[in-house]
């Protein structure tokens, strides 16, 4: 149908673009976030209705059926996914978006004679394919279908170099000849490049990679806007590309890492491969009953939840423990490191799901000054984010990363699975400090036992 003329079409696309800007703006503050997201969804709806009313389209019933299928698959998954698996789902949706952009570009190749447009086609295909394959690997790593450890093989940089050169060559051939065969070759090379780029990344850095690939898909969508001559795709894609880049940088600096170090560290050999060497230095280990007594008779307890808590899915148990302690008159707060969990900001989502009161969550800057007035810092499944080496050891991989200064609390209790160092692969001196006790075991099991013991006090 061509109900709408070009003027109205552009106007409605402008409305949609403004909605997307408002959505991103809204999402940056807790008060306006949900409304912002709704505005973004409304903008998307306006854009989709507009395309049906403005472009000369065949196959409309089939397109509507495909939209129904996509929704029927995505909505139930989005509704039911566990909050601990959120990072996987974000990566998955990102990957399929990148894949869609690559396919759109391939199909438009036949309609584009202009070399600049073909360049945009090549860019969209390549970046979309990298994002698709890279996201698939991140999903696999987060779901632990493949090893979370960096996967490396000798000659990886050579293979990667060959793939990149091949992709450039295929890209040039696509631009010159416009042949679909070269386009398919380019897609395949893009997929291989995506795999090679993400496989060497360690599990702890995967969240940063999700954010980076999110920005990549944004750029692919922006380039597809040039391919199709559609300003909305250009604006929306550029917005996501730019905001995704900034977000990636913010997250990387919260981890005290550079983005290039994360992406190419493995190639240079300076990877984040965690050491598995266990220390045999003596530590003070404790029982759930002793920990319960320590906690139950404290005045102020700060809980530092980390990756291990998310993996053990112990967020509900820790929320219960906080309630049980509060019932005994203990002041309990949670200190949340910006990169706690399996994705930056993930711990806030997990604790929100477990109904931990908003006031009990303290960000790093709020939490640190209060540690000297704290009787016990209870660290559950976290290590690197409380490792004093970030402040004291200039050579350490995490040096410069802001940490939660739990060492200033009266006593420190670690709930840990083992003595294995964290992802950064460095020992935590705090574990050997005289005021530190350790309770070994799965975070959820340990918490359940401590909770039982607290209730029995």
């Amino acid at each position, binding site marked *: 149908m061509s109900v709408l003329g070009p003027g109205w079409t552009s106007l409605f696309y402008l409305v949609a673009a403004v909605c997307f800007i408002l959505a991103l703006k809204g999402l940056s503050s807790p*008060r306006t976030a949900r409304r912002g*997201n709704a505005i973004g969804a409304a903008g998307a709806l306006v*854009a989709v209705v507009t*395309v049906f009313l403005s472009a000369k389209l065949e196959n409309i019933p089939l397109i509507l059926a495909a939209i129904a299928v996509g929704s029927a698959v995505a909505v139930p998954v989005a509704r039911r996914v566990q909050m601990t698996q959120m990072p996987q789902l*974000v990566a998955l949706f990102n990957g399929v978006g990148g894949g869609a*952009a690559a396919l759109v570009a391939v199909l438009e190749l036949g309609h584009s004679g202009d070399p600049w447009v073909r360049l945009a086609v090549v860019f969209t295909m390549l970046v979309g394919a990298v994002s698709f394959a890279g996201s698939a690997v991140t999903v696999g790593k987060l779901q632990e279908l493949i090893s979370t450890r960096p996967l490396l093989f000798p000659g990886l940089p050579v293979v990667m170099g060959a793939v990149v050169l091949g992709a450039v060559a295929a890209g040039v051939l696509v631009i010159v000849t416009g042949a679909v065969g070269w386009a398919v070759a380019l897609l395949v090379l893009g997929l291989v490049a995506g795999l090679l780029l993400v496989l060497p990344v360690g599990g702890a850095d995967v969240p940063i990679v999700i954010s980076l690939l999110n920005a990549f898909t944004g750029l692919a*969508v922006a380039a597809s806007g040039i391919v199709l001559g559609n300003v909305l795709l250009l604006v929306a894609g550029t917005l996501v590309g730019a905001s995704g880049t900034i*977000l990636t940088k913010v997250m990387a600096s919260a981890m005290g890492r550079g983005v290039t170090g994360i992406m190419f560290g493995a190639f240079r050999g300076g990877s984040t491969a965690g050491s598995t060497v266990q220390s045999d230095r003596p530590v003070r280990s404790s029982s759930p009953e002793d920990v319960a007594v320590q906690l139950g008779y404290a005045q102020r307890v700060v809980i530092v939840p980390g990756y291990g808590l998310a993996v053990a899915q112990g967020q509900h148990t820790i929320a219960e423990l906080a309630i049980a302690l509060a019932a005994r008159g203990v002041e309990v707060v949670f200190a949340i490191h910006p990169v706690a969990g399996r994705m930056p*900001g993930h711990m806030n989502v997990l604790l929100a799901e477990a109904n931990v009161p908003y006031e009990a969550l303290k960000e790093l800057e709020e939490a640190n000054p209060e540690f000297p007035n704290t009787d016990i810092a209870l660290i559950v499944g976290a290590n690197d984010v409380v490792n004093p080496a970030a402040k004291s050891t200039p050579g350490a991989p995490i040096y410069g990363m802001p940490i939660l200064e739990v060492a200033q609390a009266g006593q420190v209790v670690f709930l840990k699975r083992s003595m294995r160092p964290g992802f950064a692969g460095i020992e935590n001196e705090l574990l050997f400090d005289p005021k530190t006790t350790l309770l070994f075991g799965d975070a959820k099991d340990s918490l359940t036992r401590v909770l039982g013991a607290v209730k029995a006090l």
Partner: protein
Amino acid sequence: MMDPITLLTVVVLAVFVGFEVVSKVTSKLHTPLMSGANAIHGIILVGAIIVAGQADDPWLLTVALIAVVLATANLVGGFVVTDRMLEMFGSRKPARRGAGTGEDGK
């Protein structure tokens, strides 16, 4: 193809807007923000619909319809899951949510 200078203008302005809107975001909201930005690039659905609507042979149409399915999953799934996360953020601070509703009403 559109006028290259117009395109460049649009891109540069969009880059600055993108930088500005997320540069001061609180770390509490990084996960929903990433998920929300992720939903926005699902608007590639518009592109997928256009190519599917212009596909003139069954093979091209099939590929285009796959793109429509993938893009829809990205767009719809992204907004739904972001809303679900943000709903939880709202529910644990009733006082704040009350204030937000008041603003919505004006």
